[in-house]
């Protein structure tokens, strides 16, 4: 198993880098941006334009510097845009 290729960067389990670090028991308060992104996701889901697994795939496809550097909802927004582009609903020009 030691010769196995390294896992993709979102597959974090067992990475010593993440062992023994304190866990924040409280979620940070949501700001206006976070709430707007959350609301947008609710609308897209209700309209059948996105699923949880499509969104997760796009989050996990972010390059490591964004995956580890962006905020939770910044990653959501990027992933939602990527799903809509993948489905052909909007173009990259529309979202950039």
């Amino acid at each position, binding site marked *: 198993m030691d010769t196995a290729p390294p896992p993709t960067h979102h597959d974090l*389990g067992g990475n010593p880098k993440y062992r023994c670090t304190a866990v924040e028991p409280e979620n940070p308060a949501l700001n206006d941006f976070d709430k707007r992104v959350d609301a947008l996701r609710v609308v897209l889901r209700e309209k059948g334009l996105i699923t949880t*697994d499509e969104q997760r795939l796009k989050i996990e496809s972010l390059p490591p510097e964004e995956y580890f550097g962006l905020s939770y909802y910044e990653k959501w927004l990027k992933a939602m845009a990527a799903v809509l582009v993948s489905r052909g609903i909007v173009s990259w020009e529309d979202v950039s």
Partner: protein
Amino acid sequence: MSPQFAAGARVQVKNNRPETVMRLHLRTPHYVRGRQGIVLRALGRFPNPEDLAFNRPAPEKMLYHVLFEQQPVWNEGEAGDTLLVELFEHWLEPVEG
């Protein structure tokens, strides 16, 4: 369809790493691939996230709770520590004996 594996069955997780060849959406953590564990229970059938993620028809697959000894997987903890992972049937192979 009924579960292929009953509670108590010993199974081995397939040691496939297809995500190194192409972009996939696999929910089987890398650290249990190739490992043997014990089926704790069948959880029911769910649409396969490997298909859902690409917005294509997603046949339902049986999902299980599989219990692993922690030490060989994590190389830490004490004897008797365990690790419980949700795994889909198509990632599991029976172990004889």
